[in-house]
């Protein structure tokens, strides 16, 4: 078995980048695969150069090159993001955390009940939550860009954090509630209870999606890649 030089390995990283694999976590696996295969091809055919063997190896990924691998990896990361989110979310409905969930719902209910016009508080709550998410993601994006500039490395899982595992496209759903809340004039106890539950659930989901899951993913990535620097 031959050993490739650091320049040849760098060349393979560049090659994956030229074929739209921008992320270091995915590039690393593909580079090792290509290097193994090129070694194998060159060992079986001594006349082939590194470049020629690389072309033979890349052809094995099919006509779409690495795009299937990229797409499936993104899907797998989103699945993992939601699986983690689901696990943490369910913890808030088990003893002892369920007590905290119920307590928060009771607090929201009492506050809403004490108000003559609960809709203003509800609208304010949604605006604050959306605003917080937007500011947080903007800050994360800025730090991510800065880190990419410094290290010249992008990480696919950070890209996934930025769109909250695909949850960003679901952001429109709670906006539908705005109209409902605004037009509501009959603030019955049942309705106040439902809105209290929505407030707490939305707060929990936001906290899990933008705080707990990204932290857990960053820790896992630091464990896997010693050169990964967490975004503070």
């Amino acid at each position, binding site marked *: 078995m031959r050993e490739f030089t650091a320049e040849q390995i760098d060349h393979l990283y560049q090659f994956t980048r030229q074929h739209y694999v921008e992320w270091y976590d995915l590039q690393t696996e593909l580079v090792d695969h290509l290097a193994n295969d090129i070694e194998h091809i060159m060992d079986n055919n001594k006349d082939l150069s590194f470049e020629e063997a690389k072309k033979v190896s890349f052809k094995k990924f099919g006509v779409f090159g690495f795009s*299937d691998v990229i797409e499936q990896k993104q899907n*797998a990361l989103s*699945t993992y993001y939601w699986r983690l989110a689901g696990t943490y979310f369910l913890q808030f409905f088990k003893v002892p955390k369920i007590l905290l969930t119920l307590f928060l719902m009771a607090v929201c209910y009492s506050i809403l009940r004490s108000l003559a016009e609960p809709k203003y508080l509800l609208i304010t709550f949604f605006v604050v939550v959306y605003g917080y998410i937007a500011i947080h993601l903007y800050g994360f994006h800025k730090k991510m860009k800065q880190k990419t500039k410094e290290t010249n490395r992008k990480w696919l899982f950070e890209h996934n954090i930025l769109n909250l595992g695909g949850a960003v496209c679901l952001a429109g759903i709670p906006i539908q509630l705005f109209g409902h809340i605004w037009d509501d004039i009959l603030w019955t106890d049942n309705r106040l209870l439902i809105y209290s539950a929505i407030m707490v659930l939305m707060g929990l989901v936001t906290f899990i999606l933008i705080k707990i899951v990204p932290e857990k993913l960053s820790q896992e990535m630091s464990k896997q890649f010693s050169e990964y620097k967490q975004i503070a």
Partner: protein
Amino acid sequence: MLKLLSENDQMYGYEITQKVKELTQDKIQITEGALYPALHKLEADGFLDVEIVNIGNRMRKYYKLTEQGNKETVNKLAELEGFIKTMQDLMNPKYSLE
């Protein structure tokens, strides 16, 4: 892939393709475009654990089964055995007058 991983402590992607080729005498080849999506899905589902090891001037991603992955392997193998048995019964039916 799950069976291979259950028989080996840890394996990397290329090693899996080569091992499958070797065991099946080239009759089954896992293509590159199918291998990594499958591994990444198993990892996302919590069946595989990952370790990145530095080997000389490059890095290698090793996969190994988690506890959940071990259970899944047993289930999937039992499912496969059941399927093979059904197919055998279909191909070689045992006729009886009873």
